[in-house]
């Protein structure tokens, strides 16, 4: 999921695809803050469902791709919810209401509520994150951060270049391990591999920085080939996002 890839034209031309990436980020952050104010299970469920449906309907994300993107974080959410329920401190409280007793494990109402609440919030975060990633082109995200959020171009485009270099880490690591094998050294992990990776990453970063400067980066204020402007769509998504959050918080009570 971390490897840069192309989104289908349908996704890019969809309503969410054309919405400003900065605005989508802002809506996501507001939703997450809203979720942090409650431990009830209603709001995260509503937000997760709305995010997934919106992703498929106004984001045109193929359901299969959406499922693949949310799976890892959802599995992690389930695991976390399980352990937080079974091993919660509240289970040891003799005065708490018991929901279930399986062998030596006693599960109290309080523990179940907090475990499920935690899991659902992670599920909502995963759904929102997947929809954001699957409707946002990384170049447009960088353009939008620079033009609409005033982020430093050096940071934004440097990060974009670094993002593209992520697959290199895997290759570099494989090469370093092969190099160790060629010297008759044991396989597996060795601290030197980390040093080697770091050296190669820094050198790559240096080369990209040099390439940017060699192309007159920072010589004068930049212009933009791809302009990202605010539009009615952004207003709609912002209002829609606020309404959904308000409804979710109200419904859950």
């Amino acid at each position, binding site marked *: 999921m971390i490897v840069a890839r192309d989104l289908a034209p349908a996704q890019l031309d969809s309503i969410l695809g054309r919405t400003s990436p900065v605005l989508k980020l802002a809506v996501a952050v507001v939703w997450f803050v809203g979720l942090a104010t409650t431990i009830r299970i209603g709001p995260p469920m509503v937000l997760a469902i709305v995010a997934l449906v919106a992703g498929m309907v106004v984001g045109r994300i193929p359901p299969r791709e959406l499922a693949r993107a949310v799976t890892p974080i959802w599995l992690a959410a389930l695991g976390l919810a399980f352990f937080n329920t079974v091993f919660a401190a509240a289970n040891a409280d003799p005065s708490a209401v018991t929901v279930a007793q399986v062998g030596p494990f006693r599960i109290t109402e309080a523990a179940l509520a907090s475990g499920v609440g935690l899991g659902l919030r992670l599920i909502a975060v995963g759904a929102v994150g997947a929809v954001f990633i699957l409707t946002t082109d990384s170049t447009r995200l960088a353009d939008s951060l620079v033009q609409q959020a005033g982020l430093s171009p050096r940071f934004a485009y440097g990060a974009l270049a670094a993002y593209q270099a992520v697959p290199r880490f895997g290759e570099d690591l494989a090469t370093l391990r092969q190099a160790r094998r060629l*010297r*008759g050294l044991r396989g597996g992990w060795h601290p030197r591999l980390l040093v080697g990776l770091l050296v190669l990453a820094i050198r790559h970063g240096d080369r990209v920085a*040099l390439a940017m400067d060699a192309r*007159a980066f920072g010589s004068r204020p930049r*212009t933009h*080939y791809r302009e990202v402007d605010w539009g009615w769509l952004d207003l709609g998504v912002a209002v829609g996002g606020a309404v959904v959050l308000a409804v979710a918080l109200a419904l859950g009570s």
Partner: protein
Amino acid sequence: MSFEVPAGGCLLVVGPSGSGKSSLGLALAGLIPRDLPGEVSGYLSVAGLDPRTAGPGAVAARLGLVFQDPGSQLVMERVEDDVAFGLENRGWSRAEMTSRIPVAISGAGLGGLERRRTNRLSGGQQQRLALAGVLAASPSVVILDEPTANLDPDGASDFFRRLASLRSEGSTTIVLVEHRVEAAWPLADLVLALGPDGTPIDIGSPEDVLRRSADRMAKAGIWLPDGRTSSGPGPSGPGPSGMDAHGTPTPSAIAPAAPPGSPVLSAAGVGFAYERGSPVLADVDLAIGAGERVALVGPNGSGKSTLGRLLVGLLRPTAGQIRSSGADPSRLRARDLALRAGYVFQDPEAGFLTDTVADEVMLGLGPVERAAAPALLERLRLPLGDFGARSPYRLSGGEARRLSLACALVRQPRLLVLDEPTFGQDRLGYAGLLDILRRRLDEGVCLVAATHDERFVADIASRIVRMDAGRIIRDVEGSAA
């Protein structure tokens, strides 16, 4: 050094590896001392500006730089955006960019690839894109630092054709740093030859420089254009054994190929895929006997490097089987593998594991091999006295490659697999490499070399295996010579 390049002219910079050719380009662009440590003294004026006193990027805005490594000079994700990047930096209006970018892209022969991810382009396409991005801004000066070093012969000749048409337009001053002088020499109006210590040997018109200084250039290890190497007077220094004075092998130096016996190394129906469903190799059958010298040739991305790593046992095939002296090399213990096979990575820096040249070559060695290491480094022109304490990451491209070769040779393996061993080698480095390889080959060592270097193929191969799109498409005895 002193020189002056007229506007619209082409300056060719040649010199042995480590002579400061790249530093000159970086200093002209003002990247030394701004981005990289260093000191530039004397009078310097590029397109009317002194790079040291002009504001950041002021000189860069008037010139274009193309580096050797195609992958690390492209900044943006897609072809079109990468061309736009340089124009945005120079403050072009959107309308100007919209009309200019398609012209630049089609001029580079990349029409139709506007939305392609830059990391999906071949090395040759990436390098043409780098040039397109530079030329889109109509710079008054273009500096090219060994732009074709990583390209296959087709990619390189395409690139030089593009450069020739740029020169004939006459509006751009070109500074070209290049080892491959055959293609570069005819383009030059002016040649600057640097000595090993970075001081100029000569500067002048190509004809004058050749007439006056061919000997001194040859002695410094500079490649000279073909025709001159055979007819010019020999240098006074003794050439390595088995070569004439210019490092060209004498016919007697090439030992006849060993009679084909049972194969030392064999691949049967070998396929390999890094990701399921997208194989990079398929149905490769290959049997290599003792003493055979196999050149793996073919375009960038045809699977040469992957096959090399499979043959050594660094990768395990996803289909078929590889046998090396009766064993599956990918299942050997590292200690056993290291004794049997030596390998040189295409990017030698990616395989370095220590902080000094001495540690690097000694890593994992027993006492006997340790004793042999200094002489080997000496022969590869990396004497421990000068290089031992240096960081392997601070070597020139040619030096790093020779160090990597030393690490492979020092264990006296019976199988040598080399990935582009001659990249960036000056003439002396090349001659030393050839000499040392020939000695090993005479002892019956088996060699597989993935290479774009036609000279190297002619000098050393007894068999040429041509690959394309992950398959062997031709397998012929005899060298290309």
